[in-house]
């Protein structure tokens, strides 16, 4: 099976095949001998790559694979061949619309913009209070606020859509 992996702007393609107890992974002209065993408690792998040992906790939710290994945490996007083909057909539907979502549950203590506001990159749009900290949520790039979906004093869930920009 062929996989396209993406991590923080980088991409790598791997072809993985089973050879008996072992797996063989290829990327470009390099080959890795893998011995990968699921540990008893379900979300952990013991991974040997050419004899080097890694203890990997993996949360695999379809294309989103969140790993913990060597003290690091990685959110890797992994598409297999079929998914890649499907995504190519679906095309890029997202367009120019951008969303501001609450990164965590909290209380909206201030909304600094209104529908139609022109904002600059870095400008504070909404102030969200969570865990007793005031967190200013800022515009990632310049644009126009097309919809405001929250109001001052409102409690919002994590991931809630707060406003949309164009």
């Amino acid at each position, binding site marked *: *099976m062929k*996989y396209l*992996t*993406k*991590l*923080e702007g*980088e991409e*790598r393609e*791997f072809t*993985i095949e*089973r050879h008996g107890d072992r*797996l063989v*992974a290829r*990327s470009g002209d390099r080959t*890795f001998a*893998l011995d*990968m065993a*699921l540990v008893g*408690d*379900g*979300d*952990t*792998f013991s*991974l040997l*790559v050419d004899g080097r040992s*890694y203890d*990997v906790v*993996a*949360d*695999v*939710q*379809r294309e989103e*694979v969140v*790993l*913990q*290994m*060597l*003290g*690091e*945490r*990685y959110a*890797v996007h*992994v598409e*297999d061949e*079929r998914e890649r083909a499907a995504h190519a057909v679906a095309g890029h539907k997202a367009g120019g619309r951008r969303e501001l979502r609450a*990164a*965590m*549950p*909290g209380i909206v*203590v201030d909304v600094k913009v209104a529908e139609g506001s022109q904002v600059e990159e870095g400008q504070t749009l909404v*102030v969200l*209070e*969570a*865990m*007793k*900290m*005031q*967190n*200013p949520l800022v515009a990632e790039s310049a644009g126009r606020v097309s919809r405001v979906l929250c109001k001052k004093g409102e409690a919002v869930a*994590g991931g809630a859509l707060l406003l949309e920009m164009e």
Partner: protein
Amino acid sequence: MPAIRRILVANRGEIALRVIRTAQEMGIETVAVYSDADRTALHVRRATHAVHLGGSKPSESYLDIGKVVAAAKKSGCDALHPGYGFLSENEDAAQACIDAGVEFLGPPPPAILAMGDKVEARKIAMKAGVPLVPGLQEEVDEARLAAAAKQVGYPVMLKAAAGGGGKGIRIVREEKQLLEAFHMARAEAKGAFGDDRVYLEKFVTRPRHVEIQVMADKHGNVVHYGERECSVQRRHQKLVEESPCIALSPEVRAQMGKAACDLARAVGYVGAGTVEFLYSEGRFYFLEMNTRLQVEHPVTEMRYGVDLVREQIRVGAGEKLAPVAEPRGHSIEVRVNAEDPNTYFPSLGRITRLNMPGGPGVRLDSALFRGMEVTPFYDSMLAKLVVHGADREQAIARCQRALRELRIVGVSTSLPVALRTLQSDEFRSGDYDTGILDRIDKRPPASRRELAMLAAAAARFLVTERVGAGAGGTRAQGDAAPRWAMLGRVERLRRSTP
């Protein structure tokens, strides 16, 4: 002074557990208090008794002096330990305990009041001969703000007069940011402390945050247990602390210790306290005194072989302070917060996996358990990892080893940032200041990223393969979620709703 037989632990999380542990070792019973959200929290399960206070908001439970002190009385407690945060620096709580005949395991109300007001504290420190950072010794208002800042000279800091723990602090580098920062600092101060007074001081360049642990008994004895270096901070919240601070000369260390003890004496201090200083280029300046046990107190405990909570309880019972042992080796604490490692936003969720570190020289203070829900109601600190080694190099290596062993799955944590800090040349050299975290690249090393991508692809391969085999070669719905992930969901459904 009568012996202490039962203590009300007026706190939650790791510090409540910390107090319960020592009390248990001393043969003292403990009464936990809890909010709705904390019914199954570890401090409730480990205490010998538990009393429900009220709603999940702190104001309805842990911050409600009337409820807390009533619980202490009703459950027959002869003492109350406030931990840190919540009521620990609240002189009304201390007074309410005294009025109820319950020993408050902290300083007398006037000492809390004097040190809690940062403006007042600076006046007392000045009188006691403790050096201060240049700035205004009083509260500023909006009208005088710009003029005052200009007079002290940018960059300046705005700090909550009732503050502590980094809340309500803003650094301002130029006048145009001044007003918004002032309003935010006041709003945060109001929210956190119910008091929106803010004062202003010079921002010292390349400062280190160094603090002295003091302890005083009721017989007029005041001792200190050396210093802690707490310069690794983000958003004015400490992340990594160590002891000793390698920047201090023996002379400066001795002067700092003496200054801390002088201040404690000047306010008639009793119990455990911490005097915080800024250190820069051979000089130190009084910042504030925290009139409670500090989060990072284990760093001191491991070096001095002392149990500071035990000393607090002994002092509360009227006993004299035990002699201070010679410090040994080097220790480091890492705070593990539930937060996004890049944005520092709180990360909420359910802990689905917990691997604890072990082996020599490693201590973990936490109230974590598998299945625990990290809620937005309370502080985001999940655990404190503390290590001790023969010297600084060994302590740093041990801390990295333990950080890799400690695994928390279900929320994002500050563990990777702490690991990167310990690996950085700047931290390892020892020549760092409170700006260190801004200079550290928080991304995983490039060399590891490809490996992670390979592991992720292989994990998907194996899961897909197992689902195929496990389901007898068929799949229920085309691109079904792996059986494996399904099991994860089933487990999540187990959540308690009694």
